[in-house]
């Protein structure tokens, strides 16, 4: 019923009161009149009025009707309009809807509506403002984070940031490479079992060592040292020598808060440095002690020769001693010279650089001079040099510039190849035409380098010496050309590997998660911890068949990590496994792995320990986990490894969330969640899809009141039994 038509109780009450009032007034006035009349008059009045009473009643009704109409107008104006305004204002207050109120009713009411609309508008503006500010602030935070991450990933020093529990929350590419060298099974897990977001640094470093360093830092902070840091050197399980510099990350408190929120480790693998250092020491010691003895022998013999009473035979023996020792000294010095030039390279810090990169940089540099034109001759693209590229480019540019300037050479070429003997490369600056005298070459070597306006205090010779190399001019008379040749050191093989592997490409991988700063090792048991907080290893296996007990074997394991609710694609594990049996042809269409692919791959005995290390301290997640777990468990006896961590099954969890859906195959779920499936049916591809599914299941589980690991496992168990019934 329309509220406009329904009479309000208050109006009816008012009308009733009015009617009563009028009736009362009529009765009282009638009664009073009646009392003043004589009996005779009463009769006449009674006769006169009695028959006309209905008339009075009618007037009263008429008056009442008019009053009702008036009241209604007043009611609409002063009660209904404010009430409506109240309703609308309540709606405004309770929701985010943006609307203007329609002003109605009395003037005051209309004004009030306007004011409320004004407030609402103001609120909307403020809200938009705040949202904007929040968005900008988080964008700039995000920018800063990614800038930091970019900076970190470009650093040539390895950096690892941990929270106080030793959980890694940032690392860079260099650190990743370094940990690879520390891994027990570098070929399989490539260090991903050691370094990863949320992983514990204590798998690499002794917990006590780190605690001790932290304590030192804390003491220094208490004393008010400006930039407290600590250093330690430690050997790793793989026998590498690591030097770590630790710097505290202060907890983000106000003012001079002296508490630590985490720490930064700058790591240096000093194994090689140390070996070089010891080699140098040994050489030096060999030289000093060996020479001392020889010198002593000669000195003594010479002293003896001074005695005038020496007979000829004796004299000859002393001469023999001297000849002998001089020979020994020469050999020793020669050997030392050899070793020192080979093993102990120049002290100047040289960097590893791909020779081809150096050549193209040099070409650009020479071209930028204006003259001469520069082109590449033969360049051995496989050579890695150990150079100070800045000064070397300067030297090349200077020589090219002088060739153009003083000899009018219009074009030069650069050639790079391995030197015929020894671990060196030869870099040639070639030109056609006139050559200079040996004396000029000497001068060019000794002069400070110049390219027109640019002058350097260094000479070409200095640059060559910095590299422990050589430099000369060679003439090819037949081809009427000449070249300057630089002999440069090559980078040692392991260094080449370090630099060559894992060049970051395309999108920058995420190697940080600062949210981990907040998470602390909670005293709560695993079962009580929220699903959103846990670290998961989501994995999948490809197998030769469905029955491990009948000899079916794993042929591939793939796994990805979820830390802090984020899927870390680059911290993945993927490995083919030699099943040591034939792969049934029927199964090949399913997994797409052929016999040839698994031949020569490591066996499960190698892969499983690496996977076990990769999965340690995490919750395992798989689709139809029971299947994969059966394969792992059957290997327990053979490898001695037990996968005892809790396991979650996305199949069961999906059935829990969507009990009415018919299919809980991975594809079907992925489709429901609109997950783009790439590389399905490789173990890693499936693991990643499973991980995406799992991440989407977590909030849906929360809607069902399932928040912790314990709750999820229990609920999944029930679904399992429920499914068994059908």
């Amino acid at each position, binding site marked *: 019923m329309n509220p406009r038509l329904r009479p309000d109780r208050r109006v009816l009450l008012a009308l009733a009161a009015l009617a009563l009032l009028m009736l009362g007034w009529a009765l009282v006035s009638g009664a009073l009149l009646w009392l003043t009349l004589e009996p005779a008059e009463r009769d006449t009045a009674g006769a006169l009025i009695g028959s006309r009473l209905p008339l009075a009643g009618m007037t009263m009704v008429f008056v009442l009707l008019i009053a009702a109409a008036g009241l209604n107008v007043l009611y609409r104006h002063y009660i209904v309009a404010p009430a409506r305004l109240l309703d609308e204002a309540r709606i405004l207050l309770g929701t985010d809807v943006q609307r203007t109120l329609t002003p109605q009713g009395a003037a005051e009411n209309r004004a009030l509506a306007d004011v409320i609309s004004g407030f609402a508008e103001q609120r909307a503006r403020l809200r938009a403002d705040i949202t904007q500010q929040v968005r900008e602030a988080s964008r700039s935070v995000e920018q800063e984070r990614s800038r930091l991450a970019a900076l970190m990933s470009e650093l040539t020093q390895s950096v690892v940031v941990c929270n106080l529990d030793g959980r890694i929350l940032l690392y860079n590419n260099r650190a990743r490479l370094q940990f690879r060298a520390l891994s027990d099974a570098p070929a399989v897990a490539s260090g991903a079992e050691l370094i990863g977001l949320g992983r514990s640094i204590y798998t690499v470093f002794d917990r006590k060592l780190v605690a001790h360093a932290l304590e030192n830092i804390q003491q220094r902070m208490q004393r008010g040292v400006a930039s407290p840091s600590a250093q330690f050197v430690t050997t790793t399980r793989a026998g590498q020598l690591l030097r770590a510099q630790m710097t505290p990350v202060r907890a983000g408190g106000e003012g001079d808060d002296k508490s630590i929120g985490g720490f930064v480790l700058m790591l240096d693998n000093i194994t090689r440095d140390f070996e070089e250092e010891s080699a140098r020491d040994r050489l030096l010691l060999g030289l000093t002690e060996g020479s*001392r*003895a020889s010198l*002593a022998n000669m*000195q*003594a*013999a010479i*002293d*003896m020769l001074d005695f005038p009473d020496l007979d000829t035979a004796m004299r000859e023996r002393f001469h023999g001693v001297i000849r002998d020792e001089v020979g020994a000294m020469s050999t020793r010095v020669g050997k030392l010279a050899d070793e020192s030039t080979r093993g102990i390279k120049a002290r100047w810090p040289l960097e590893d650089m791909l020779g081809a990169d150096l050549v193209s940089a040099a070409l650009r540099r020479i071209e930028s001079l204006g003259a001469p034109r520069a082109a590449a001759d033969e360049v051995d693209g496989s050579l890695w040099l150990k150079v100070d590229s800045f000064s070397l480019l300067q030297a090349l540019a200077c020589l090219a510039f002088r060739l153009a300037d003083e000899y009018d050479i219009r074009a030069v070429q650069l050639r790079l190849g391995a030197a015929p003997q020894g671990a060196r490369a030869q870099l040639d600056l070639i030109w056609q035409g006139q050559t200079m005298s040996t004396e000029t070459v000497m001068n060019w070597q000794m002069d400070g380098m110049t390219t027109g306006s640019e002058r350097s205090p260094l000479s070409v010779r200095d640059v060559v010496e910095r590299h422990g190399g050589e430099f000369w001019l060679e003439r090819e008379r037949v081809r009427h050309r000449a070249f300057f040749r630089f002999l440069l050191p090559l980078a040692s093989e392991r260094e080449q590997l370090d630099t060559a592997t894992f060049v970051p490409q395309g999108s920058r991988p995420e190697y940080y998660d600062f949210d981990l700063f907040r998470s602390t090792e909670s005293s709560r048991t695993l079962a009580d911890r929220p699903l959103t907080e846990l670290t998961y290893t989501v994995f999948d296996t490809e197998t030769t068949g469905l029955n491990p007990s009948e000899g079916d074997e794993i042929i591939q394991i793939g796994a990805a990590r979820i830390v802090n609710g984020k899927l870390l694609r680059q911290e993945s594990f993927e490995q083919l496994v030699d099943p040591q049996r034939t792969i049934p042809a029927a199964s090949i269409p399913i997994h797409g792995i052929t016999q040839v692919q698994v031949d020569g791959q490591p066996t499960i005995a190698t892969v499983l320990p690496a996977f076990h290390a990769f999965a340690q301290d995490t919750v395992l997640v798989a689709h139809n986990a029971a299947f994969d777990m059966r394969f792992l468990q059957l290997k327990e006896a053979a490898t001695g490894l037990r996968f005892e961590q809790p396991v979650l099954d996305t199949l069961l969890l999906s059935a829990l969330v969507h009990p009415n859906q018919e299919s809980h195959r991975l594809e079907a779920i992925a489709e429901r969640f609109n997950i783009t499936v790439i590389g399905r049916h490789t173990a890693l591809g499936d693991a990643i899809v499973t991980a995406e599914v799992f991440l989407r299941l977590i909030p849906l589980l929360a809607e069902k009141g399932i928040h912790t690991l314990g709750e999820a496992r229990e609920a999944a168990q029930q679904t399992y039994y429920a499914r068994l019934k059908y």
Partner: protein
Amino acid sequence: MTNKILIADDEPNILISLEFLMKREGYEVTVARDGIEALAAIIATRPDLVLLDVMMPGKTGFEVCQEVRTHDGLKDVRILMLTAKGRDTDVAKGLALGADAYVTKPFSTRELVQKVRSMLEPTT
């Protein structure tokens, strides 16, 4: 009575000079070519002074010196260590193990002779 000197060094090139030098000074000289031989010779002949090289096969000069000092009957044997190890830590070690003097190679033969003479003087 002439003083007996034992020269222990594995390098013939120094032995020849030292032997010649010490004989010329009028001492009765015996030689040993490694640590074990040196220790045996010291016990057998009880020389007044030993010119002891540190780096010898068998036993190092340090070991020989230390073992000599554990023998009560050998406490009069003076020990002069000759060595190419010139670090002050080596000198300290030699003296701590009971050597009476320490000469680093190379050395002047005249000074060595003077040193030997002065070391033998108090006993004669």
